[in-house]
């Protein structure tokens, strides 16, 4: 077991390295740099010193150095929690991202929790009440959830909320808590604002999970041991929980590998639509202005999140299902 964990963690390092290098390179790829647009703006305003200023700025951001040198400087800084300067407002990246990353993390983990809880309840209900009203309703919800793209759903909800209920669902907390230290009130406010984004982001994941859990549980429920158990007079609830459910629950953990990237992708675009103070909108802005340090840091954050999530899922699966051998999990 320990061996397995160590090997997985060691494998994470080169993966992250490759991803970060690739990402850094890609963001820097297009012609021009983040100073160009700022300078263009200055020039348009008729600032005579614009070109001098450009050289100063380039030196400040280290843009006069070759790409690989900047990359290694950035990577070296990561271990000191120093991600270089953000180009847009000349602030260290680490100051910009702290709260956003925390909020993103909160949002994404609550989305996963939401997916688990809701799909568990609905999936089990649908499987035990096959071809009844509730099952059809659940299947229908599942289908809609799978086919309606989440950012469009967010857009529609935003519109409905604005026009019919007069409330703005944008933001992640009431305005008076922004930039305030953490408090109970702030927590409650964040929790209230999280509801809509979590539902929107978790929709498709929940739908898929319900489908799988229902199918798995239905398969299990038809097996002979269930019939035997029932014939021997096991109470229905106990009969359900004791064996079939334990079998059927595997995808919950195993599918994190597929779920996590979806949730992260969804959270990026949904938070842009709902203008949440998470990493999404800032990443988009940084990419548009070629703010390499900022964008690369966010992307690295996403990568780390994914990789750790995968690791946890593999470990949990191994713990949950003794049939899974450690060597074999990577082949799946």
């Amino acid at each position: 077991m320990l061996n397995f964990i160590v090997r997985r963690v060691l494998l994470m390092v080169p993966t992250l390295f490759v991803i970060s290098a690739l990402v850094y390179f890609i963001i820097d790829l297009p012609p021009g740099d983040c100073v160009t647009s700022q300078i263009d703006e200055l020039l348009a305003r008729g600032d005579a010193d614009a070109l001098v200023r450009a050289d100063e700025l380039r030196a400040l951001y280290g843009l006069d150095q070759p790409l690989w040198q900047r990359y290694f400087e950035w990577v070296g800084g990561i271990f000191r929690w120093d991600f270089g300067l953000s180009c847009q407002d000349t602030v260290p990246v680490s100051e910009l991202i702290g709260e956003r990353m925390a909020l993103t993390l909160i949002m994404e983990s609550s989305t996963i929790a939401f997916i688990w809880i809701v799909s568990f309840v609905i999936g089990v209900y649908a499987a035990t009440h096959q071809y009844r009203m509730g099952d059809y309703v659940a299947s229908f919800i599942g289908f809609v959830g799978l086919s309606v793209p989440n950012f469009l759903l967010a857009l529609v909800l935003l519109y409905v909320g604005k026009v019919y209920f007069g409330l703005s669902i944008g933001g992640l907390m009431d305005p008076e808590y922004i930039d305030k230290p953490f408090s109970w009130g702030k927590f409650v406010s964040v929790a209230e604002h999280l509801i809509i984004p979590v539902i929107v982001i978790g929709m498709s994941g929940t739908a898929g999970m319900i489908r799988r859990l229902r199918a798995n549980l239905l398969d299990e429920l038809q097996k002979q041991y269930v019939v035997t158990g029932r014939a021997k007079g096991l109470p229905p609830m106990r009969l359900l929980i004791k064996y079939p459910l334990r079998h059927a629950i595997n995808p919950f953990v195993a599918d994190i590998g597929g779920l996590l990237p979806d949730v992260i992708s969804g959270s990026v675009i949904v938070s842009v639509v709902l203008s949440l103070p998470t990493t999404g909108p800032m990443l988009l802005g940084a990419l548009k202005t070629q703010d390499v340090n900022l964008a690369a840091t966010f992307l690295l954050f996403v990568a780390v999140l994914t990789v750790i999530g995968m690791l946890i899922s593999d470990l949990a699966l191994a713990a949950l299902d003794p049939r899974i051998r450690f060597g074999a999990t990577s082949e799946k």
Partner: protein
Amino acid sequence: MTDQSSTPPTRTPHFVSQEKWDPYVAERLTADQEKYYMAGQWKLMWWRFRKHRPAVVSMVFLALMYFSTAISEWIAPYDLHSRHSAYIFAPPQSVHLFHEGKFLGPFVYGLKTDRDPDTLQRVYTADLAKPMPLRFFCSGAPYEFWGMIDASFHFVCPPEGGQFFWLGTDRLGRDLFSRIVYAARISLTIGIIGITLSFVLALVLGGLAGYYGGWIDSVVQRITEIIKSFPHLPLWLALSAALPVTWSPLVIYFGITIILALLDWPGLGRAVRSKLLSLREEDYAAAAQMMGAKPARIIGRHLLPGFMSHLIASATLSIPSMILAETALSFLGLGLRPPITSWGVLLNEATDINVVAVNWWLMLPVVPVVLVILAYQFMGDGMRDAADPYA
């Protein structure tokens, strides 16, 4: 055989039928059975597919949508870019049939423009006094058919001296319905082109990995693992932000399809690989190898046809995600750029919720997106069920 119990026993004369005897007489098939057993696999699949009603309906719907992209110019009453500065953010004009209890045929009421004295916004009211009948199969706004032939034929034209904004107009006074019709060209083709690229990539890379195994396999496997496990949207964003602004919109269009395909092929590639891995152990593959066939021939001629139907079904199922990805990218302003117009580009106008709250029709491009995605999903489901007709 004669009745043994009856008396007296008489011998039946020796008889040899001159007719040809069919040894399979007991196994003769009825016409229906024969049709079924003799049908090729694609025909069987089609029969199986036909039974899936929603899939068939979806296929018809998609066929109509794609057909419409061939004649967008005829369907759209206006040009993609024509601006009507007098009608900015005009609301949808509904089509009426009866005017004051009298049947007039399809007509619209003219629009009266006023300014709200407080907000200075334009307010449009229908001029109920003046019904303006629509014209059909008419000559309207001139255009170049497929960018080549000058023409002016439309199915529907705005009434004489009036306008017909069935779905309203946007901030530049462009007719939204016409724009949705034209945008279908881009949105629908991007999925097809993207999936074709991704299909080719999957066949080549998955084929190499599955057939040769060894280090090629492990390299391809690692790449697919990384791509599959990393969230696509941030990567898509980064890649499309990397497309230079100086490129022409058409080049950007192809750039976007390539980006979509680059991240999409691992799913298909993995399917190709695992199928090849199992099929190459079959006797017929070994036989071909013994007879000296080259790998390309073995893969292309003997192995691929065995699971082509599965591949096409799963490719169909991933078209909607491509269309969605393009829509999302364009919506975020990192995808296609005007003058190339897709549904995502249209939705980009709907990013500001305060504008949308007043002009709700800007959200309408959502409808075709959702319908097309649903249709693809139903059709893909049907195809997947039909993909293995011998099951």
